[in-house]
């Protein structure tokens, strides 16, 4: 079993719980062990570094210090959220390049009894770990219920592929790693030219009209290719495309109903796990109709409605209507 330190980040605790659930389920099948670091804190998302540079690096470095092994050997830290992955890897990279910054960050960390030596933690995205360390063949060996017939648009978003430091594992403009992974699962991967475009991030809270237009472009491209599902790897992208899809429809008079699922959810389904185990059912745009096309709808939606329970003998009597005729 291969072991990694694990940084879930704030999103995977709740909003992107389905990502956490499905990745843990998939990891078990792939013989991967994720050891969550103790008492981690928020990575600062995409905003904090724009407001205060040194505190933002100190905030991220606290997580790196907590993930670093005591014996000085390099540790591998897996971050499934694209923003967390970018912040953690960027902080480590820049601290390696700038000893003056590292010194200041360590002066700050010392106030909390911590210290970090840049380069002692290798930050990796989950997709890269699955593709490089596990490999497509091992993934294919776990496929029990192929996703054949499910048309999937692979959406990477803009954070994971750029910038290309930290041994980038895919092309920043035209990534294909997730395409290949979904293909191994048996899905019909559609051409998705906007796969690395921005979803708007937090623009929904700042300039909603602009954000909705960015989202409309992503949905339109998927609809043009008749995709049943958009597969994503970023909690921010998932939230925007999922929770604001209705707002896009209202604003532009469109009628999109495209479920947004994490690639780990699709892996879990292909590995034969129940939709519930894959966290299906937590999305705003229900995935059940799309999954029904490949016979993988949620269990309760295929069950016939349960007959009403018989009333308890001791319950209060209900009025009865006189029989007609």
């Amino acid at each position, binding site marked *: 079993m291969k072991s990694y330190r694990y940084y879930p980040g704030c999103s995977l605790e709740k909003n992107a719980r389905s990502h956490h659930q499905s990745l843990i389920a998939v990891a078990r099948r792939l013989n991967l062990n994720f050891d969550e670091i103790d008492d981690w804190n928020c990575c600062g998302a995409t905003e904090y570094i724009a407001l205060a540079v*040194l505190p933002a690096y100190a905030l991220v470095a606290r997580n790196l210090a907590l993930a670093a092994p005591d014996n000085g050997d390099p540790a591998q830290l897996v971050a499934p959220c694209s923003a967390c992955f970018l912040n953690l890897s960027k902080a480590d990279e820049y601290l390696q390049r700038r000893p003056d910054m590292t010194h*200041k960050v360590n002066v*700050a960390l010392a*106030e909390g009894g911590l210290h970090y030596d840049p380069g002692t933690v290798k930050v990796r995205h989950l997709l890269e770990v699955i593709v490089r360390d596990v490999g497509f063949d091992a993934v294919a060996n776990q496929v029990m219920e192929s996703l054949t017939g499910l048309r999937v648009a692979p959406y990477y978003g803009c954070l994971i592929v750029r910038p290309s430091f930290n041994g980038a594992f895919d092309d920043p403009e035209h990534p294909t790693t997730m395409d290949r992974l979904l293909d191994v699962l048996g899905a019909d991967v559609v051409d998705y030219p906007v796969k690395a475009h921005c979803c708007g991030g937090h623009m929904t809270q700042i300039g909603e009209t602009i954000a909705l237009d960015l989202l409309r472009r992503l949905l339109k491209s998927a609809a043009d290719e008749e995709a049943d599902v958009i597969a994503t790897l970023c909690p921010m992208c998932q939230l925007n495309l999922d*929770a604001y899809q209705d707002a896009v429809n209202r604003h532009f008079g469109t009628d999109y109903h495209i479920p947004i699922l994490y690639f780990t959810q699709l892996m879990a389904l292909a590995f034969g796990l129940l939709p519930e185990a894959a966290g299906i059912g937590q999305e705003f745009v229900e995935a059940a109709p799309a999954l029904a096309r490949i016979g993988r709808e949620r269990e309760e939606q295929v069950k016939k409605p349960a007959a009403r329970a018989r009333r308890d003998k001791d319950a209060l009597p209900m009025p009865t209507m006189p029989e007609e005729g």
Partner: protein
Amino acid sequence: MRKASSLGLGLWRRGRMDLTPRRIEDIEGLKAILAKAKELEASEGGQA
């Protein structure tokens, strides 16, 4: 604010949001780290 509330309610209904956040155990340590980092940044005129 109304739109954010509606999003929050939608997330909460789907079990995707808690009303109370997870507490950081060593919150005092984290506060001390951030306070020192802010102090260092301020002492250099915001240039890290």
